[in-house]
């Protein structure tokens, strides 16, 4: 139950952040979503058996190693994507804003982009 709630919490927070303005929030949301999905993958392998899957000795309560292998690579790939997104956040002009300001009090980033 706790794990399911944790996954839900991470997913909710991730989706919320992704839907806000600014690349950094999107990146952070993406990171949280990654956590949610990775935990879900591990959960899909079953959470009742919690011993580390090493050969030798009793493996009757060893966890399923397959989702672990998936998640391990997923984490590293997510890291690669994160740094690419982070790079995209700091190139160009203006800041990491992803949309023009709602009230027009600042210079819209799209315009300054076009002017440059």
């Amino acid at each position, binding site marked *: 139950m706790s794990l399911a709630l944790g996954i839900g919490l991470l997913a*909710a927070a991730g989706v919320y952040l992704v839907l806000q303005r600014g690349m950094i929030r999107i990146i952070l949301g993406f990171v949280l979503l990654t956590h949610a999905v990775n935990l879900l993958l591990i959960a899909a392998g*079953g959470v009742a*058996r919690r011993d580390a899957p090493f050969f030798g000795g009793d493996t009757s309560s060893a966890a*399923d190693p397959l989702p672990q292998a998936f998640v391990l690579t997923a984490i*590293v790939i997510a890291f*690669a994507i994160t740094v690419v997104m982070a790079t995209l956040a700091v*190139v160009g002009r203006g800041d990491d804003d992803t949309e023009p300001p709602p009230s027009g009090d600042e210079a819209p980033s799209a315009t300054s982009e076009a002017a440059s």
Partner: protein
Amino acid sequence: MPLQGPGVVTLTALLVATLAVVVITMVATMAIGRNAGWVAAGGLAVLAVLVGLRVPELLEGSGVVREVVPWMPTLDVAVRLRLDGLAALFLLIVLGIGALVMAYSARYLSDMTVHRHTGYFAWMLLFAFSMTGLVLADDLVLLFVFWELTTLCSFFLINRSGRRASAPAVRTLLVTAMGGLALLFAVVLIIARTGTTVVSDALASDAWQTDPGFTAAVAVLIALAAMTKSAQFPFHMWLPDAMVAPTPVSAYLHAAAMVKAGIYLLLLFSPALAGTVVWQSILVTSGLITAIMGAVFALRRFDLKEIMAYSTVSQLGFIVALIGVGAPSALATAALYTLAHALFKSALFMVVGIVDQRAGSRDIRLLRGLRRSMPVTFWVTLLAGLSMAGVFPLLGFISKEYLLGQMLEPGGPAWLGLLLATTAVIGATATFAYTGRILLGGFTDYRGSERVDDDLDTHRMPQFVTEAGPGILVPALLPALLGLVLGPAVVWLHPLIGAAGGAAAGTPYDATFALFGGLTVELALSFTIIVLGLVAISRRRALDRFFERRILRFTAIDVVERIRTGSISLGARVGDLTRTDAQPLHLATPWVLLGITAVAAIALAPVVGPVVGPGEPRTDALLLALLLATVVPAVITRSRLTALILVGGAGFVVALWFFALGAIDVGLTQLLVELLTVVALVLVLRRLPAVFHRVRRSRQFVTAAIALGVGALATVVTLAFTGRRDISAAGQYFLDEAYTDTGGTNIVNTILVDYRALDTFGELTVIAVAGIVLMGVLAARPILPELTPDLRPWAGTALLREADNTLPIRVVARWAAPVVIVLSIYLLLRGHYEPGGGFIAALVGGTGFALAYLGASSDRQAPVRWPYRALLSAGVVVGVVSGIGGYIVGSFLKPVRVDIPLPWGGEYGFTSALIFDLGVYFAVVAIIIAVLNELGGVRDRPGEIPERAGVRRAEVAP
């Protein structure tokens, strides 16, 4: 297979040899430039002779040679090759004309001081290879692959001839690729219906008789494919359009070989489809319309090459109509016509190239008096032209004679024969007339029309023209002469054409062509054609005036262009439905859709098994509490830095959770990645404002609602669909067998580097690509400047002195860095047996580099000057190389194991998987160093890059 004894050239060897010619010629161009054309010509000629020598042998035996080289056994796809009469005929055309055109290219192209022409020869010979494969293919999939290859070769050959050529090249590709799709549909349909991929087996299936719907569908698709390839109405436009390609390309691809691929396809499928009403009506109608239309258009053009193109279209129309008639004698005539056309049309194209090269123009309004200055060229043109016009005693005369005979008796009602014959006579008369236009327009003062188009470039009026050299004339002369010899000696062709016709008809057929078949109706018609043609030529000025008016207000090219732009704008229209600059809409859509799916899944599949195993341990609740404590404030805070730190904290909690779930390696990886993510993002945050942008309150509510919905669903789905079964069968297998299979005890690592190494290799590549993207983006676009923090409150303290405030970390780094590096190597080596492995070791190493970076007193001094670009590619290269050894023991990336005895006793189980893991290590370390160096501020400030580049350019310039 009687011909496969030792010392006999096999079909596979033939195919490989054509490929070898490509490579040899490409190498030769490096040394001798255009003269490599002679090498290629020699190679193709030898192959043509070898095939030619085998033909009699082949025809005496079973009539067919087959070979099979396995390719995709599970799909029943193989390199099945077959040589029968039909294939032999086309093979001789492809190789023979290919050799001539290659020899011609050696003098047509500019010499080596201008260009080496490596690409030109590569594509031309690759095309020869593709055609060889196409006519030899006895496998439907192979047939399709080679078919598409010819399309691609044609596209690249057109496209590489200058800026002007790009639009025609694309149009050509679109039309011919559409035909390719039709062929693909047909192939799939045939495989599905007959259950075999073997062409000859499929053609012998009884499905063709029992299932008329299937037969009709395939007939339409095959006809469509062939009509696009052979430029038949209404797909004829691409061929004149493709004339922007160099003349040898036109002579080979667009006269002799590629357009004949369509003819070959029609003949190949004739045994199954001939006689079908759909097949007959499509081919005969389209063929005859094309024949007349092409000839009429040829009468209206001024560019010799364009006239040739329309002439080709028209001649192919006759052949297609013949195949449509479908009787064995008609198919044999089609085969003969194909050969005759290949001979005279390649000669004519080569002549046009010679005229273009010597006189600097191909426009009949500009060319005059060449009959005197270029007599040999004129005679070659005359010889080939007369064959095309169907004049006694050339080969073209015979093929035209028998064409008329077939049109007179197509089977069916008598009026049909009358109609077809009349149409054929009109087409043939127009052919005669445009042959006159070519000869008179190109070599005398005749100008075609008094009308002067705006595209006429009068400055290019040729002045002093001299005859071309023998090197370029002989390749053009040979096929023209062959047309003259083979007319009276048509008996020599009987075995080959008979076998080709027999193969196309599906029954043995004996060819009985004769130069003079008695006083027949055909002879009378031929005579009529010649008389009418001569009248047309003598009354040419009146004819020109008649043809001056435009027949239609638009051209076929316009239509294709409209379809092309129309489909693009339709695509844009469809895209507009979802196109918006508001990111949240894009990002929200998948969640909403996913949510709907999840709701549907829960609603549809309520039956889930009972939860297995004991309840969760208390620690889970604690971890959830920690997660709440980090995630909730991370969402609420407006400070970028705070949010980053809190999200990093959440990552640590998740890592702990992984540990709690028995995923040691995963937890370690998560921990290290979290560390490095925070470091990378801190580097980014220095360039951004301290707080997030404001969003409207209403939006916060809406997004929060979506987020809570997704979260609730995620929880429900996790509860409903996980934890309800015991360990998966795959997981159990790994637990039981991993050690025996791989010798590794760390099962997760064995999955990564042994069992699923190809997956991991893909991931390693993703990391390398991400690194390249990162560097590329930063090289292409300016990076935001760093924002100077407000340091006034800290004035006078040690915090402002860079050298001082990094002291602690430098002290730590001095002893920690070597330890970290040794630890990282240790983790790499033991990864197969205990927690560790390439990913974790590299991440540990990465933290070492991060430490070194943080310890530097300023950005400019800091950096870890490692060649991360090289390291990144080294990762992929090492991964690939480590996998090659696996081929010896089975497959790519399959680990090879060696036990190395250790000096202190025992042994170390060395496996090539370790080298693979080293590749992973390199790539991951490289991307971390790339992040530190590229984002860490050691690169140039924005604005400096273009200036410095300018300076460098200035230095290079003299």
